[in-house]
C-alpha cells in the first residue's frame, strides 16, 4: 500500500508539472473537438493527431496522447447521443438510449450523466491499474483462443438482449453481421472471400464505413422522410445537467458498469468492446420496467458509458505491463511510444518508472480535465441541436465524408459508406435494428479467428471449449443469458414482450 502511494506520488509529481497539465488539457480538448465530429472515431482521431505529438518529450507526448484518447472516446459518445452516430463499436450502445434522451430534450442530462459516469469509472480504473496492474496481467494470459471464442459467444448472446423488437429479427441481424465480417481476405489462407474480385474489399469492410452507413447515413434518410419528427430537438430543451433524481437512478448502473468494463478491458483482443454491451444487458434485465430501455432510460446511458471508460482505461494494463497492445487504439499508442524511443515491454515499469507512473497519474488528471472541459461544453453541444435540420444533415455528411476518407485515405470508402447507407435504410424499412448487426460484425472477425486458432491448436477437437474451465464457464453463462432472453418469448404473453 505504501509502495503504491509512493509510486503515485512519483507519478503525480511528473503529471502535475505545468507543462504536462497543459498538455493533458490540450490533448483532452483537441481529442474531444475532433472526436465529436461525426464520422471521426477515436482511432481516426488518434491517427490524425499522432503527428502533432512528435515534437514533445516522451512523457509529455504520452500524456497528451492519453488525453486525446479519452477526449476522442468521450467525443464519440457525444456524437452518439446527439446525432445517433457511433464513432466506434463501444458507443453503439450509447445511441440506443442516449439519442432517445436527446430527442426528448434531455440531451444535456444524457451528456452530463455520461461525463460523470465516465469520470467515476476513470477514477476507479486508475486506482485499479495502480494497485493491481501487474497481478491482473496474469488474467490476460489465462485467455487463449478457446476462452476468447467462448467470450465472443457470450457477447453474441448479449446482442439478443439488446434487441428492442422481435427476437427473431435480432437473430437475423446478428447473423448478417457475422456474415459481413467474413468478407475480405481470409486471415488463415489468404483467399479472397465474397469480394466480387473488387480489390478495395480485400481487407474486408471497415467498421467505420459500416457504422457510418447503417447509423449515420441511414438515420439521415429516415429523418428526411418525416419532416415532423426530424428536428432532433423539437420540444423544449430541459435541464442541462442531471439533477439529484437522475444521479440517484444512475449510481448503481455506474458502479456495475465500472466493474464490468474494468474486467473486460484487461483482456487483450478487444475484450473492452463487450463492456458496454454487457452492462446494457444487465441493466435491462434487472430493471423493474425493461420496456423503458430503448426509449431514453438513463440507466442505459450511465452503465454502458461507465463500462466504456473503465474498459478504455484498463486496456492500458496489458500495454503498460506486458507491452502487448490489446486493440487498435493501443497499437497506435505503441507506435507513439516507439517513435519517442520507448519500446513498450515488461520492463517499462522498472526502467522508466517516471513514465509509467506519470502516465497512470495523468490518466486520472485526463479524466478530471474531461469533466472540466465537457460540463461547460454540454450547453454548446445542446445548442448545436437547434441548428435547422436542413443545414444539419449536409454538415453531418461533409464531416462523415472527410472523416471516412481520412481513415485510410481511400475515396472508395466513402462510396461504400453510401452503399451501406442504402442498406441500412432498407433494414430500417424492414423493421430491423442495426445495433445487433454491428455487434455481430465486430465480434464475428474475432470469433472466426479464435475458433480456427483454437481448433488448429486442439487438432480439430471441439472438446477444447468445454475442457478448459474458463471457456466452459463462459459458455454456461451464455446459455443462461440466452435462456433468460428467450424465456418470455416462450410464454403466452408473446406479443407484449416481442414488441416492447
Amino acid at each position: 500500500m505504501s509502495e503504491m502511494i509512493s509510486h503515485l506520488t512519483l507519478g503525480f509529481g511528473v503529471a502535475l508539472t505545468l507543462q504536462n497539465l497543459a498538455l493533458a488539457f490540450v490533448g483532452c480538448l483537441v481529442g474531444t473537438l475532433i472526436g465529436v465530429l461525426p464520422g471521426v472515431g477515436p482511432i481516426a482521431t488518434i491517427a490524425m493527431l499522432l503527428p502533432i505529438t512528435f515534437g514533445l518529450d516522451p512523457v509529455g507526448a504520452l500524456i497528451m496522447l492519453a488525453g486525446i484518447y479519452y477526449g476522442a472516446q468521450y467525443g464519440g459518445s457525444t456524437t452518439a447521443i446527439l446525432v445517433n452516430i457511433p464513432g466506434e463499436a463501444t458507443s453503439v450502445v450509447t445511441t440506443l438510449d442516449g439519442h432517445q434522451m436527446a430527442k426528448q430534450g434531455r440531451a444535456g442530462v444524457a451528456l452530463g450523466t455520461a461525463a460523470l459516469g465516465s469520470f467515476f469509472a476513470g477514477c476507479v480504473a486508475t486506482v485499479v491499474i495502480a494497485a493491481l496492474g501487474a497481478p491482473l496481467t496474469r488474467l490476460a494470459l489465462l485467455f487463449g483462443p478457446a476462452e476468447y471464442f467462448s467470450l465472443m459467444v457470450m457477447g453474441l448472446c448479449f446482442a439478443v438482449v439488446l434487441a428492442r423488437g422481435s427476437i427473431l429479427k435480432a437473430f437475423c441481424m446478428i447473423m448478417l453481421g457475422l456474415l459481413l465480417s467474413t468478407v475480405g481476405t481470409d486471415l488463415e489462407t489468404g483467399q479472397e472471400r465474397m469480394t466480387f474480385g473488387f480489390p478495395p474489399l480485400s481487407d474486408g469492410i471497415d467498421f467505420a464505413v459500416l457504422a457510418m452507413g447503417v447509423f449515420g447515413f441511414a438515420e439521415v434518410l429516415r429523418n428526411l422522410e418525416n419532416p415532423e419528427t426530424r428536428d432532433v430537438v423539437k420540444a423544449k430543451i430541459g435541464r442541462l445537467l442531471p439533477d439529484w433524481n437522475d444521479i440517484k437512478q444512475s449510481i448503481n448502473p455506474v458502479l456495475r458498469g465500472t466493474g464490468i468494463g474494468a474486467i473486460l478491458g484487461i483482456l487483450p483482443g478487444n475484450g473492452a468492446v463487450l463492456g458496454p454491451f454487457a452492462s446494457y444487458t444487465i441493466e435491462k434485465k434487472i430493471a423493474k420496467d425493461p420496456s423503458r430501455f430503448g426509449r431514453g432510460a438513463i440507466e442505459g446511458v450511465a452503465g454502458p458509458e461507465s463500462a466504456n471508460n473503465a474498459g478504455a482505461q484498463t486496456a492500458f494494463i496489458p500495454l503498460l505491463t506486458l507491452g502487448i497492445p490489446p486493440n487498435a487504439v493501443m497499437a497506435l499508442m505503441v507506435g507513439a511510444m516507439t517513435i519517442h524511443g520507448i519500446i513498450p515491454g515488461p520492463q517499462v515499469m522498472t526502467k522508466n518508472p517516471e513514465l509509467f507512473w506519470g502516465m497512470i497519474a495523468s490518466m486520472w488528471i485526463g479524466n478530471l480535465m474531461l469533466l472540466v472541459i465537457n460540463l461547460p461544453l454540454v450547453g454548446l453541444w445542446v445548442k448545436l441541436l437547434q441548428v435547422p435540420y436542413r443545414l444539419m444533415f449536409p454538415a453531418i455528411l461533409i464531416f462523415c465524408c472527410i472523416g471516412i476518407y481520412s481513415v485510410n485515405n481511400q475515396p472508395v470508402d466513402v462510396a461504400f459508406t453510401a452503399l451501406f447507407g442504402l442498406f441500412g435504410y432498407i433494414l430500417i424499412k424492414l423493421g430491423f435494428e442495426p445495433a445487433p448487426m454491428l455487434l455481430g460484425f465486430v465480434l464475428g472477425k474475432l470469433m472466426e479467428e479464435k475458433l480456427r486458432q483454437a481448433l488448429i491448436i486442439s487438432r480439430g477437437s471441439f472438446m477444447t471449449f468445454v475442457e478448459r474451465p474458463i471457456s466452459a464457464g463462459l459458455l454456461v453463462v451464455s446459455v443462461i443469458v440466452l435462456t433468460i432472453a428467450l424465456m418470455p418469448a416462450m410464454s403466452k404473453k408473446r406479443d407484449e414482450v416481442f414488441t416492447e
Partner: protein
Amino acid sequence: MKKLMLGLAASLALAFTGGAQAQGTYPTKPITMIVPFAAGGPTDIIARIVSEHMSKTLGQQIVVENVAGAGGTTGIARALTSTPDGYTIAMGHLGTFSAAPATYPGLKYDPINGMQAIGLAGGTPILIVARKNLEPKDLKEFVAYVKANPDKLNEAHAGVGSVSWTTCTLLKGQLGVPKLNAVAYRGTGPALNDLVSGQIDFMCDQIVSVAEQVKGDNIKAYAIASAERSPALPNVPTTKEAGLPDYQIEAWNGIAAPKGTPKEAVDKLVDALDKALKDETVKKRLLDLGTVMPSAEERTPAGFAALIKRDADKLSPTLAAAPK
C-alpha cells in the same frame, strides 16, 4: 483562426508562384510519401523519422499519407501508378517489394522492372522466438525438434502476406516442413500475447516487436537471422553461429518512386535520404528501434534495387509453393 487564414493566404500565394517557377528547381511543392500501412506501425515509424529530416534537406514538407490495405500492396500500387514527377514516393518493405509478386498473383505493379528504387532506409533483423518453456534449448536442438515432431508444434504469424508469415514460411521451407501447423493472428500483438502465455510454440518476427519480451524473459530467442548480432540483444546468436547459416533474412524498409521519375528528383531524394541517415539524431532513433543502418551501397538506387531482386529470388520459390 487569424493565423490560419494568414497561413492559407500565404500558402495560396506560394502555390501560385511555385507553379510558375521554371523547371530544375525540384521540389517546388510538398511531397507525398505513401506508407502502405496504418499509422503507428514499424514502417510508419521509420517513414516518419526519416521523412522529417529529408524535408529539411529538400526544403519542402514530406507529407506522410497512410494508405493501408491488402498487405501494403494497395498503397504501393497507388504510389507507383501516380504521375512520375517526384512528388509521390512510397516507403515499402520486404513484403511489398520482394515478397508481394509471389504472394499476390494479381499484383498491379512490378517492383523489379516497373519501379524507380530510391534507397534503403533501414533493415530490421528477424528473430526466431519461442515460448519460454519449449523443450529445445538452442537453435540446433530446435531444428532437430521441428524435424522430429512436425505435428506437435504450432507456429504463429500475423496473417498471410505479413512479415512474420513471409519469414517463417521461408524458415519452414528451408527446414523441409512447409506444412507445419500455422496459426494466423490479426497482427503481431495478439500473436505475441499467445506466445507469452504459452498457447503457441514459436514464431518469427521483427526485433522491434519481440526484443522487450526476450529481455523480460517472457519468451526465448533462438537466433537472429542477420549477419551480425544486434546491440539490442547481444546475447542472441546469429543463425550462422547457431548452425542454420542459410536462414538469412531482414525485414527492411526502403523508399521507391514510380518508374520514369526525373533524374533530378531521384538524385535529390537519394541525397536527402543519405543526409537523413547520416544525421546523429535520426541514427540514434533508428538504432533504438533495433534497426541496422544500411550500407553506402544500399542507400543508392542500384544497390536497393539489387537487394529487392535478391530477396525476391530468395523468397519466390518458397512463397509460391507455400500452402495458403
